[in-house]
């Protein structure tokens, strides 16, 4: 009852003219950055972060969160109609979404993606409302040794679900962890790999790296294919899905909601991974797995639901514990801190209007996005008709100003530009950037928890296997890695055998 009472108060904040206006601005901007290749939620939130400085903290957070889940919606539009993922979480949607569009079924794909996103987003909000308090207590009780196992599990899952070469993915994960060690050591404050440059003491700017590796490299890659963008624009009447589409996508939406919910709540695991996992699960559960990659609607419904289900639950560790679980919530943490609001267990009692205002605004935002995305799909697709070469300076300039505004540092611009060029070359040779960035976010915590666990246990490695929960998690990780290693060894030996046969 208490929750409902608080939620009503939250709606009073979210339904004020300011709340509605900035929620709409956030959703609209989020959809635009989701649609445009090279800009994603991270860049979108970073760019508008300065705009929140003059606002009430609740309103500022409502707008930034709107960008976050708006980008999830927007990303699906271009994935389905153009086969260009507007942002990283929509990569998986390209596979079957675009195939459906080519078969003249773009409308149902968009409709199912939007409805799935709405259901996933709303489901995760229920979790945020009702499960956050007890789960927060449980998470608080978790020690650093469990966190080490959880993070390793997350990285193991990434290695399994990421597309392309597993060994290249493993290299990117390790490289991300390594790059994350640049800066002052968290425990001893010893500078590492800073080469005497004080600008590197705090480590490499995450926003600069993220925008460079994802955004700038994407722009460079798109420049090579700037003439190949051909959007398929469905008519409004074509949006209605068939009964078979609803039947096939309903279980996928249900599973996607749960997967997104779980991945959103595990610290450090991004919305990107939840989409890969959801796709893999749908393929496994499907009676016709051979249809995946050829226009299976479950391959659109599951990942799109999952990436929106992440948005609500990703807020749980941020708002209840003060720990950002994914990069986007790290930006929200920065914004809250700037406004003097400390996220954590006391937030719900000291600043209830922030927590419940945000929850209420997310319900409203989901409705705004549903209304905004379906009828205006043609308008958003038209953004892609602007010659890409004209958009390049606009996107790069906004990114530069956004990156500079975080720390007022030219070094961050250098990091963004260099990482963009490096990302371009690596992506040309099929190295994935998402595992690198995820590992970068997790690396600091992995090392900190690892060393803290050993310090607490007096150097006893048994601390990582002394609880049943850890054993279960470790077993899952071990199983995943064994499967992965077997697949790799088998594939490698098979290729050697084939080669020997050929000789």
């Amino acid at each position: 009852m208490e929750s409902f009472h608080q939620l009503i108060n939250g709606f009073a904040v979210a339904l004020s003219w300011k709340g509605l206006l900035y929620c709409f601005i956030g959703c609209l901007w989020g959809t635009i950055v989701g649609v445009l290749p090279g800009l994603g939620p991270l860049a979108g939130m970073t760019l508008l972060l300065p705009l929140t400085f003059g606002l009430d903290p609740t309103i500022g957070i409502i707008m930034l969160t709107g960008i976050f889940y708006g980008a999830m919606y927007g990303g699906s539009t271009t994935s389905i109609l153009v086969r260009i993922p507007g942002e990283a979480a929509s990569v998986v949607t390209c596979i079957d979404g675009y195939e459906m569009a080519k078969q003249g079924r773009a409308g149902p794909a968009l409709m199912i993606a939007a409805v799935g996103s709405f259901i996933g987003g709303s489901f995760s909000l229920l979790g945020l409302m009702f499960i956050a308090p007890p789960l927060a207590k449980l998470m608080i009780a978790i020690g650093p040794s469990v966190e080490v196992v959880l993070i390793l599990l997350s990285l193991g899952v990434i290695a399994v679900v990421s597309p392309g070469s597993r060994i290249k993915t493993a290299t990117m994960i390790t490289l991300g962890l390594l790059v994350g060690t640049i800066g002052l050591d968290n425990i001893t404050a010893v500078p590492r790999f800073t080469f005497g440059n004080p600008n590197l003491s705090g480590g490499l700017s995450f926003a600069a790296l993220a925008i460079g590796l994802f955004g700038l490299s994407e722009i460079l890659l798109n420049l090579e294919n700037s003439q190949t963008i051909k959007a398929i624009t469905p008519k409004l009447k074509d949006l209605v899905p068939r009964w078979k589409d609803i039947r096939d996508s309903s279980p996928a939406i249900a599973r996607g909601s749960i997967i997104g919910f779980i991945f959103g709540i595990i610290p450090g695991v991004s919305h990107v991974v939840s989409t890969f996992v959801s796709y893999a699960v749908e393929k496994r559960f499907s009676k016709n797995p051979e249809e995946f990659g050829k226009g299976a609607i479950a391959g659109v419904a599951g990942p799109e639901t999952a990436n929106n289900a992440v948005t609500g639950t990703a807020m749980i560790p941020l708002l209840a514990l003060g720990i950002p679980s994914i990069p986007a919530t790290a930006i929200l943490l920065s914004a809250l801190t700037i406004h003097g609001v400390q996220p954590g267990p006391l937030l719900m009692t000291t600043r209830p209007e922030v927590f419940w205002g945000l929850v209420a605004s997310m319900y409203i935002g989901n409705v705004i996005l549903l209304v905004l995305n379906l009828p205006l799909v043609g308008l958003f697709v038209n953004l892609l008709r602007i010659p890409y070469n004209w958009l390049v300076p606009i996107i790069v300039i906004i990114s530069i100003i956004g990156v500079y505004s975080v720390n007022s540092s030219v070094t961050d611009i250098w990091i963004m530009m260099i990482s963009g060029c490096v990302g371009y070359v690596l992506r040309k040779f099929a190295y994935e950037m998402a595992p690198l960035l995820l590992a970068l976010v997790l690396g600091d915590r992995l090392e900190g928890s690892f060393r803290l666990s050993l310090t607490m246990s007096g150097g006893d490695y048994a601390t990582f296997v002394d609880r049943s929960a850890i054993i279960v998690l470790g077993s899952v990780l071990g199983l995943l890695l064994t499967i992965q290693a077997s697949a790799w060894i088998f594939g490698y030996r098979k290729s050697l055998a084939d080669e020997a046969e050929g000789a």
Partner: protein
Amino acid sequence: MSESSNEPGRAGRLPLVVGARGGGICVAAILAAVGALFAWQASLLDLGHVGLPGPGFFPLVLAIVVTALAIIIGVEHWRAPAGGEKVALFHRDVLIVMAASLAVPLVFSALGALLALGLFAVAILVIVGRVPLLLAIVAAAAFVATCWIMFEVLLGLQLPVGPF
């Protein structure tokens, strides 16, 4: 390596076409060198011991793993048959955008943010976008003015002003 099969479009006048095998070996070698550099630097830090690792322990282990994985990738590429897939790198427009992007931080403080970004926009619009110079200048000026109003006037962001 899906990009490797893409036909270069209008932007593809000067692509550097390399074999996936040779290019893959080069990239792996660079990654291995980066790993080795990190390993060397990490070895100069306090490593502690296995039970109680110091600040150099974690990066040293990671750097060794990166180097080892990169060597494995390099060997895999080396074992691949020669004359296979090709990878088109650095199309004309890509090179121009890269060069212009890297020039921005060089002059960002010296010229001032708005002038540096304005010049960047003009260069990209003229050379990459094939927009007439006058139109490019007008468009860049309009966009930079919009940025100034939005970020400096409305948001109060302090951008470097340069000598002006």
